[in-house]
């Protein structure tokens, strides 16, 4: 985070107030706030804005709802699982309720002539 710009620190403050930062990121932000008065002021004003909004909404206590964190790998895994389940379900439904006439090959049902 050494090369982090001021705008990026402001974004980190927003994320921190939303509860989206990991422990390492929160530690880095705390370290920066200890040395950057500008960012510390910005964080304080962000907090004040959130408290004011919460109060205007009838809630005297400001609180933060953490957003569910969805990682790309997890999302891809669930997509693959859903696709596979759909394929298996479709195959089973087609076999069970799809076009009739299944079971065995056509040759099994055809007549034959055998010389004794």
């Amino acid at each position, binding site marked *: 985070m050494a090369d982090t710009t001021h705008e990026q620190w402001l974004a980190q403050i927003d994320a921190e107030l939303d509860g989206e930062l990991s422990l390492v990121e929160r530690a880095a932000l705390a370290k920066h706030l200890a040395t950057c008065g500008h960012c510390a002021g910005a964080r304080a004003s962000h907090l004040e804005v959130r408290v004011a909004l919460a109060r205007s909404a009838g809630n005297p206590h400001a609180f933060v709802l953490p957003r569910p964190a969805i990682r790309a790998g997890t999302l891809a895994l669930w997509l693959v699982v859903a696709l596979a389940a759909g394929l298996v379900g479709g195959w089973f439904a087609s076999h069970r309720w799809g076009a*009739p*006439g299944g079971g*065995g*090959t*056509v*040759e*099994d*049902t*055809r*007549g*034959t*002539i*055998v*010389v*004794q």
Partner: protein
Amino acid sequence: MIAALQGPGTRLTYRIRVIEPAVTPRVLASGAVSGPLDSDMRLTLRTDTAEVEALFQVTAFGDTVTVTGEFLTRRLVGRSRRDLPLWEEDTYRRLVRMAWSDTARIYPFGTGKRPQGRSPWVELILERHFAGGEARAAERFELLDSTRDLSIEAVVRPRRARIILNLVRGDTVSGPRPMDLVLEEPARVVQLVLKGRATTLIVSLSRPDPARSARAGALALDADVVCLRVSQPAVLQPLGTICGRLNNIARQLPLPTGDTLAATFAWPGPR
């Protein structure tokens, strides 16, 4: 070709038995179809869930004979969403070579495993013998289990046909003019007299056009259909063509003179 096959001398017999498999196999039906050497046999078997129609033809070659079976099968495969039966149709050909008097076993419903149990088979024996002059087909069929829907019939393509011609005008009919016509032979002149007026026509007999449906073609459903071509002397354009089975039913053709020509087709008498 057909004339040679239907000539006196050789007579072909399809002898069949329909057998239901069991510990002691049971004969459901038996019968025989015989006729000229070019006679075919049509076999029909029906159950609640399947229908098999087959036309068997033989080609003799020395001491062996090749049996060709054209099969048309319909199988009940389920019901639609509107609860109507769904049928699966199949058409195929089977061919086997055997010696005269060998026994061929025909499995019309196949030999595969079926939930309703094993299906009946048909035993077929082909025989030929000499029978001078007998060109008419003959059938004999005995159904021993009346709950079964089985049938066999001879399929013979006529070489000649008996045609009876009448002229009709209002409620007056000319005397019948019977004649034996040979298929694909040169046309003949016929004169019909009605109320003292003679009408001269040129008639010839031919086979109908090939069957339009695959089923009719495969099962030779129009084997006994002939077409009578009617024209006037010195006029190229024919007056018309009457096609029909050899079943003694009169078919009509309007003539330019205002009369109507009634033609009745029948099998010729035995020779």
